[in-house]
């Protein structure tokens, strides 16, 4: 019978640990602080999309806290690593909701991870602002508690098609990497191009592992395409541009929001002149080297001296400003419902870096993007802002 009583003892103990202590009325909110959770890859290959965006968010929170917080409460950020893996994202989100008991989640970097965790977010009703994952399916169709401050893949594709159409391009080549992000972009770009009457001359793959793009360049070169859309991370895109330069292939090259910094990209390509005809799209209207970003750049480097500053920091700042604005709007009597209502009511919110005012009526708050080029002097230059016609 002793064994039995031991088992019962273990069960009771576990129950005691598992049942949350209801010390406060609203989860994650005390009189002095608001606990906000964030998840994304902090380590591993995709750390930039997670950790660096979190750095931006945390820098903004620190800034707000230094100025007295939101309605007298300071913002506290809890980071959880999802390692960019669906199971990891589910565990991370559940940890934030049930273990850390945060008030809201501002995070998400890998589309598949967020998609896997979406059901939990939906069911728990916790306010969620996606800050870096691109997939349109995260926020569409609209779900009550899910918002996004990132440029969605649908919008980015539509804006790219519009840009090409404005240039008068009739035939384009697409060079894509076939991972979750790349295929999501690919899937939305093809119909967007078709809608603008632009023909896809060739559709090539260039993987992350590739160290050579000779075959792809030759095929694109032979296709008579007037412009090339590079749906890839900086690495494959650089390989492509290097090989294009060496094979004497010049064209207009269109980048994506994962290559938001054409100056850094030019350093990666490292072939003089290879990025002269490269224009990229960004969810940020100022680059890190601009005068407008200088103040933030300093705060970021002071707070996170080990991490190289990166455009992804700025996406975190945008998400943070949206969050803070909505928290202020929701007032001192903060609940998850009032925060969600405040988010939804956000309209015409000007942030430091978003290329247009944030309107969260459709829950996809960012509806504009900037076009960025590298100047011959090696500075970034915003060559245009665009919103969908």
């Amino acid at each position, binding site marked *: 019978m002793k064994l039995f009583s031991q088992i019962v003892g273990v069960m009771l103990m576990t129950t005691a640990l598992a049942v949350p202590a209801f010390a406060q009325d609203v989860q994650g909110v005390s009189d002095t602080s608001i606990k906000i959770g964030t998840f994304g890859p902090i380590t591993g290959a995709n750390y930039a999309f997670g950790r660096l965006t979190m750095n931006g968010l945390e820098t903004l929170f620190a800034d707000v806290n230094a100025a007295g917080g939101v309605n007298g409460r300071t913002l506290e950020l809890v980071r959880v690593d999802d390692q960019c893996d669906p199971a990891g994202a589910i565990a991370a989100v559940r940890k934030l909701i049930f273990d850390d008991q945060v008030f809201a989640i501002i995070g998400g970097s890998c589309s598949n991870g967020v998609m896997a965790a979406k059901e939990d977010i939906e069911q728990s009703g916790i306010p969620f602002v996606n800050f870096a994952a691109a997939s349109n399916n995260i926020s569409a169709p609209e779900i009550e508690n899910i918002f996004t401050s990132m440029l969605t893949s649908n919008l980015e594709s539509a804006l790219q098609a519009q840009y090409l159409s404005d240039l008068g391009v009739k035939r384009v080549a697409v060079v894509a990497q076939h991972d979750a992000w790349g295929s999501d972009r690919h899937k939305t770009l093809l119909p967007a191009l078709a809608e603008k009457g632009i023909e896809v001359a060739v559709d090539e793959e260039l*993987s992350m592992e590739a*160290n050579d793009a000779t*075959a792809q360049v030759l095929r694109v070169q032979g296709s008579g395409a007037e412009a090339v859309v590079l749906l890839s991370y*900086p690495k494959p895109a650089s390989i492509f541009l290097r090989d294009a330069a060496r094979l*004497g292939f010049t064209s207009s090259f269109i980048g994506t929001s994962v290559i938001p910094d054409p100056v850094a990209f030019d350093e*990666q390509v*490292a072939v003089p002149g290879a990025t002269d005809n490269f224009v990229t799209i960004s969810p940020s209207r100022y680059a890190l080297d601009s005068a407008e970003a200088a103040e933030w750049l300093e705060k970021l480097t002071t707070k996170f001296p080990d991490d190289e500053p990166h455009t992804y920091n700025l996406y975190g700042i945008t998400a943070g400003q949206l969050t803070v604005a909505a928290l202020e709007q929701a007032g001192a009597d903060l609940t998850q419902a009032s925060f969600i209502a405040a988010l939804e009511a956000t309209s015409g919110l000007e942030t430091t870096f978003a290329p247009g005012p944030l309107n969260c009526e459709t829950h996809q708050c960012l509806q504009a993007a900037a076009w960025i080029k590298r100047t011959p002097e090696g500075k970034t230059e915003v060559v245009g802002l665009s919103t969908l016609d």
Partner: protein
Amino acid sequence: MLSVLLASGVANGLLYGLVALGVVVLAKAANAFNFSQGDVMALGGFVSYAVIVTMGYGSVAALPIVVIVALFVGVLSYLLLRPLMDAQHAVALLTATIGLSFLVKGTIRLIWGRQGDYFAVPPLVSGPPIILFDGAVIIPLQHLVMSGGAVLMLALFALFFRFTRLGLFMRSVADNPRAARIVGIPTELVLCSAMVLSLVVSAVAGFLLAPATLIFPDMGFSLFLKGFAAAIIGGMMSLPGAVIGGVLLGVTEVLVSGYISSTAQELSAFVLIFVALIFFPRGLFGGRSSRSV
């Protein structure tokens, strides 16, 4: 188009061949395989980045430092894995090298992981590409250096095995470990040098490859896999076979990509591995008899 494709296929293939050389050296002398070879290759790239870009020395300075780092890692790996380096521990050794691969990759990420996502290493030589036959063949200097370096390494290996005492020892241990021990060949030394040599050649391959690509901590594994495929195609026991296997793989990849589909490029290496293993278990150049069980 074909000539351009072939030129780049050969240049890439020679690099696969270099990794394959490392695979074969270790397989021959110690009958072992080391999963961390690809990560040491990445390490070679990162060390040359540190020397050339961060510290601002020239490429000439990078090579000896890459070799020294690889020697260090190699000796360390040997000391760590020594208890497992015999035929009875083959599976355990392989598992341990997977751990080693994680260690090396994790260390790379710890040192360089926060400084950016992908690093560009400047070319070893700069200048316009060599254009032959009115532009029918364009060979970038970097490819020429890569190919030249790979061929040079192969030649050094051949000389080493033919003319040095250690090389002779390694050959005889490979042929018959039992007999080698009986006649007094220092087995320990041979195993250690095989491990070190295979990692050094990988790191040098990383040094040669780095300027042609962008380096990132996870780059190693797929390169190791391709080097391994090259070694298998070449028969696992033959040094020239390894290099020819590498070239064959590089050319196949680029031809598949150029004439069939760039999506199928990644698949071609795996198909080649499988086909080679099943239909040419001794490789195209190997000549060892196998048992029926």
